[in-house]
């Protein structure tokens, strides 16, 4: 399982990359999340301009087996969505850290964010549970 060092993680298995001194962020799902879901076949892309609140539902995505929510790690305004995922949701399986879902600006609150090492330990606990 891949967990890049330069990202931060949530306990609900999203990754977030904060940049521009923490005022902007990209958000996606982790390798653990895509592996749990299996073959991903659909993602609802949120609308640019919408505001999101940390810990609330950002959007949802679907595998052959199930539908699952994606929670926003941060509060902010959606300034871009990855349109490529509309026709190629399988990118979430094949390269989850390149397949960002939304870009956010005006970042406010965040949920508890884990470092790569802390997230790795958390995933191990989840697998053993």
């Amino acid at each position, binding site marked *: 399982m891949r967990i890049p060092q330069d990202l931060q993680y949530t306990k609900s298995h999203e990754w977030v990359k904060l940049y521009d001194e923490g005022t902007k962020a990209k958000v996606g799902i982790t390798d653990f999340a895509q592996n749990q879901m*299996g073959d991903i076949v659909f993602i609802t892309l949120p609308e640019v301009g919408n505001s999101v609140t940390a810990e609330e539902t950002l959007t949802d995505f679907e595998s052959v*087996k199930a539908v699952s929510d994606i929670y926003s790690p941060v509060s902010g305004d959606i300034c871009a969505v990855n349109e490529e995922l509309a026709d190629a949701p399988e990118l979430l399986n094949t390269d989850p850290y390149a397949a960002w879902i939304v870009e956010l600006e005006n970042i406010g609150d965040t949920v508890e964010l884990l470092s790569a090492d802390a997230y790795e330990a958390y995933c191990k606990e989840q697998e053993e549970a």
Partner: protein
Amino acid sequence: MEAKTPLYDCHVALQGKIVPFAGYLLPVQYPAGVIAEHMAVRTAAGLFDVSHMGEVTYTGKDALANLNRLLTNDFTNLAEGRVRYSPMCNENGGILDDLLVYRRGPESFLVVVNAGNRHKDVAWMQEHLFGEVTFADISDQVAQIALQGPKSDDILRKLTDEANIPQKYYSFRENVSVAGISCLVSQTGYTGEKGYEIYVENQYAPQLWNQLLEAGKDYGLLPCGLGARDTLRLEAAMPLYGHEMDETVDPLETGLDFAVKTNKDFIGRDAILAKGLPKRKRVGLKITGRGIAREHQPVFAGDRQIGYTTSGTHLPYLNGAYAMALVDSAYAETGRQVTVEVRGRHVAAEIVPLPLYSRNK
């Protein structure tokens, strides 16, 4: 606490993702994933553990009479070595289960039922026994492995003589040796492809499973989990108990009229006849909007709810979102534009004929 099938250790060794299903711990998928497993069955072959299915036997002078009274289909002219599908109904014509009947001899039958209904079925069957018949639930002694896909013949031929392979769909051979193990081999399945279901004593199941996997290596055989079993049967429009049918649905509504013989007496017959023409019909839906319909979602024609979906997902071979639905017969014509309410949102769909997929024969 879920039971393990005799193949549990094989699934763990193959890194299957184990989930509880119908009282058993079974793999939902292996590392290849549902889509790859599904495609393997359509283009090469797949191997499934279906040991959770229940098996019961009827033997004796009145075995045939019992089955003809209990089940909607007629087994009078079922030849030895042949298999026939049937719903089993309650007095109201509601479906208790759907099952396969194997005729092993003039007075000997094997009946294969759904795992999730086994205990209910066995109680119902025992309650309705009459005359000279011996009934036994042998589910816990029997494992079942399904080998499905266009390469299944090639794979089976590597492990047994051609003469041991049943040549016709819905026929079987009993006490034949596959990889040196005594089996019942049946040309049946739940995928819409040519294939076989192999019944074997529990203790020999892992050996048979591993031999089949090995024999299939050169043919692209993949072990397949419950996920692919479900997408395959949905693509082939095969009904699943708890989805396309349950005790509130009668067999005519869900399109099983071919297996309902109202010219003989059976439990539920009067209720089915009294209802007249079915008011609902099972249809296919192609999702034309953006989204994926799942089971038990309302289907609308304009503002009017005309029914509900019974199964739905993204189907790998057709490479799109599809569903089956039970809808008002007056709104069931092919080509009708409808919507499915998917988590509060109306997604466009079109009624299409069933099956969604049918193999080139």
